[in-house]
């Protein structure tokens, strides 16, 4: 290469971690091992909503190579979560989503652990599931977390109101009203979750993991196991992609629990299928939008109702629906706004952080609204945006006055030549 690597500002930099990665030496958690390690496997619920009537563990305990079979009874404080500790380490009685871990089996080899896990019998009473957030948010819907989230499945509601929408509608000469829906997504980071947990020579619990959030992991592990923070050390290994999907606890506490219980190093490695079961997803959102504008193409008013499916556990849902609400207008100045954003618990896989963190989904709605308005007004989609974008001095729906560094106009003008002949159709 011609340009020099190194230097200061403007120089090219080699990623320090790239060396180990191109040589195959970078250690992801599945790549590390300790003498005498055993292997743990979680038995997960195939049902999205169920009561556990009983467990039969004798066959698993007798299986070849088994070291320990653990249940919720072995977890001192059975809950974790980034905002609310509403997610059990091992389910005691109430299964809220398919993939909830119920029993943890530890054995000398991975094959023995999987074989023994196959011999665990869980007696489920399958319950009707709440899969539609609109249904789940109704008052008469059964509450999924009465102890932690109370009698409603709505874990979060953020109203963002500005101005006077009645006035906005009076001024509007054109109205567009539509429903939008986005789908659930998985991050599908390439490296399935893996953990190595062990008790070190000082008697401290060490958990080696690929995580986005080591200090939080340490707190949750310590809390669940009834240990002090200084008894737990979380060591972040190479992280094989995350995209938000490694912000919550996946295998960390289970591996730590097994290591603490057996006092042996414990390895857990998800298969790809288990990985899909054991981390959060992107929130599907249903968005009802109604937008009004003058004939001159100036936005006067917008009302939106955004319902995010939180799935079985809260995770980051409040923060994500907050972000959705705050970004609901897009980069457009609208004098009168009424946005209501909700996060609703259901029996779907739990949803949490993923690239954009709630700001990504409303794009579909607000930009589609702009295109539809352009069509109604006979303007180009570019023009209708130019007439409404944030500029220095604009006030957002939350009342923030943008004092500087607002690049929208420059950006729109810069892309115009690439858009070709775009018309309002």
């Amino acid at each position, binding site marked *: 290469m011609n340009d020099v690597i190194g230097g200061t500002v403007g120089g090219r930099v080699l*990623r320090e*971690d*790239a060396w180990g*990665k191109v040589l*195959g030496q970078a250690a992801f958690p599945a790549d590390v091992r300790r003498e005498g390690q055993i292997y743990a496997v979680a038995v997960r619920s195939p049902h999205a909503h169920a009561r556990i009537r009983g467990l039969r563990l004798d066959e698993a305990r007798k299986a070849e190579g088994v070291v320990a079979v653990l249940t919720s009874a072995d977890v001192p404080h059975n809950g974790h979560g980034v905002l609310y500790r509403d997610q059990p380490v091992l389910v005691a009685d109430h299964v809220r989503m398919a993939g909830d871990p119920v029993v943890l089996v530890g054995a000398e080899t991975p094959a023995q652990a999987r074989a023994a896990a196959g011999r665990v019998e869980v007696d489920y009473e399958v319950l009707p599931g709440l899969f539609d957030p609109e249904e789940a948010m109704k008052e008469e819907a059964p509450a999924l977390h009465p102890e932690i989230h109370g009698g409603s499945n709505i874990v979060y509601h953020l109203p963002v109101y500005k101005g006077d929408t009645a006035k906005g509608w009076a001024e509007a000469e054109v109205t567009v009203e539509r429903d939008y829906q986005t789908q659930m997504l998985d991050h599908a980071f390439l*490296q399935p979750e893996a953990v190595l947990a062990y008790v070190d020579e000082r008697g401290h619990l060490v958990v080696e993991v690929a995580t986005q959030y080591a200090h939080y992991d340490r707190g949750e592990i310590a809390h669940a196991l009834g240990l002090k923070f200084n008894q737990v050390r979380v060591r972040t290994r190479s992280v094989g992609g995350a995209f938000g999907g490694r912000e919550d606890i996946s295998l960390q506490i289970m591996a730590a629990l097994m290591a603490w219980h057996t006092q042996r190093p414990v390895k857990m490695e998800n298969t*790809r299928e288990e990985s899909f079961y054991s981390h959060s997803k992107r929130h599907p959102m249903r968005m009802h939008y109604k937008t009004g504008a003058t004939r001159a193409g100036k936005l006067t008013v917008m009302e939106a109702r955004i319902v995010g499916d939180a799935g079985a556990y809260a995770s980051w849902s409040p923060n994500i629906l907050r972000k959705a609400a705050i970004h609901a207008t897009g980069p457009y100045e609208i004098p009168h706004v009424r946005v209501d954003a909700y996060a609703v618990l259901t029996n779907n896989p739990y949803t949490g952080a993923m690239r954009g963190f709630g700001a990504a989904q409303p794009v579909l709605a607000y930009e589609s609204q702009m295109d539809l308005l352009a069509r109604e007004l006979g303007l180009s989609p570019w023009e209708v945006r130019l007439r409404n974008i944030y500029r220095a001095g604009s006030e957002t729906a939350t009342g923030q006055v943008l004092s500087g560094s607002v690049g929208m106009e420059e950006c729109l003008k810069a892309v115009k030549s690439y858009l070709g002949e775009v018309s309002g159709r």
Partner: protein
Amino acid sequence: MKIELKVNGVDRRLEVEPEERLLDILRERLHLTGTKEGCGEGECGACTVIMDGKTVNSCMVLAGQADGHAVTTIEGLGKRGSLHPVQKAFLEEGAVQCGFCTPGMVLSAKALLDRNPHPGKEEIAVAMSGNLCRCTGYDRILKAVERAAGEVEQ
């Protein structure tokens, strides 16, 4: 069962279970953990190794199938100070992000350049098409392979 295979130029005699995959043998028995398991079903290419000059997904090769063959893993390429041109190009082009796909990518590129030192863009794209990068750094990766082809040429 007993198998014999050459791994990175070294003859290995191993006692293995017939259910074991080449991937398991490399990782668990030989501790060559540069070969990664991403999906276990031939979708992602993270476990790519070169067997007798051809890339295969080591998660879909049984121990017995590998018996008698020569396998190259990422550990069999360069070292610090003597990087393989593909490794050097990945490093310099910034074609590495989380790194989990990198060993497989590097081996797919090496197999291509061994077969054809002057591939065109289309041929590079096809050769790399069995390796997924979820960080979506494909552009840099393809550029790195082009750069490596230039180096091989010199």
